């Protein structure tokens, strides 16, 4: 027995194969975030009260910078997907929902861009 609608049988396009994309990316970044975020906590704690010279010395290490950039990217993708679900759950009006999802995307990628460029600048000597 087929569960396809008459319309979908006529167009014959089938699935876009992206039905689980949101869920899967959310879980993938969640798995990555566990070790990456523990690393970030260690990094922040080791730099509490640090001066700028210590920051430059820390990010002169390419492994530290690379891991921090990966953390920022994974976290920003994860939080963009997460907040999108919060918006979709609580905002009923279609217009506001679209505007908020748009702002959510801009904020998430904006934060990622500022952080990554800053980290690269620090890494290359400030």
């Amino acid at each position, binding site marked *: 027995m087929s569960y396809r609608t008459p319309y979908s049988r006529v167009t014959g396009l089938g699935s876009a194969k992206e039905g689980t994309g949101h869920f899967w990316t959310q879980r993938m970044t969640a798995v990555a975030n566990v070790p990456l975020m523990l690393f970030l906590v260690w990094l922040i704690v080791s730099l509490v009260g640090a001066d700028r010279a210590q920051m430059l010395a820390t990010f002169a290490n390419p492994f530290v910078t690379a891991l921090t950039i990966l953390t920022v990217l994974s976290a920003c993708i994860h*939080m963009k997907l997460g907040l999108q679900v919060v918006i979709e759950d609580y905002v009923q009006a279609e217009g506001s929902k679209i505007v908020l999802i748009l702002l959510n995307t801009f904020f998430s990628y904006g*934060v990622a861009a500022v952080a990554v460029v800053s980290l690269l600048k620090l890494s290359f000597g*400030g």
Partner: protein
Amino acid sequence: MAEPNRPLSPHLQIYKFEITMAMSIVHRITGVGLYLGTALLAWWFAAAAIGDGAFDIAQGFFNHWFGRLILIGYTWALFHHMLGGLRHFVWDMGKGYGPERYTYGWLTLIGGVVLTALLWLLVLI
């Protein structure tokens, strides 16, 4: 059109309190908190990249008791959300839907507080 006289579905206050429902909404709240906190993280990196003056302002904020409180709150939200996430991994694999879900809920709540306390004890020592 007249409102049909249909029964309403029971709302939140009708249900007995369970730790799982509290952890569900706290997972979401900590997630939103972490979301907003990334702006502070980006500010911290950007300030360090800009120069000594900008970085002194940022470090001054995080060394102030209010900034430190935000930092401690951020690490708690992180640990809590992480433990809650590990619980979701178990559920994603189709396990942990029995009475053990209450244990997971309490472990998330207590674990988040304990890990935060241990971390900041280490910082202060």
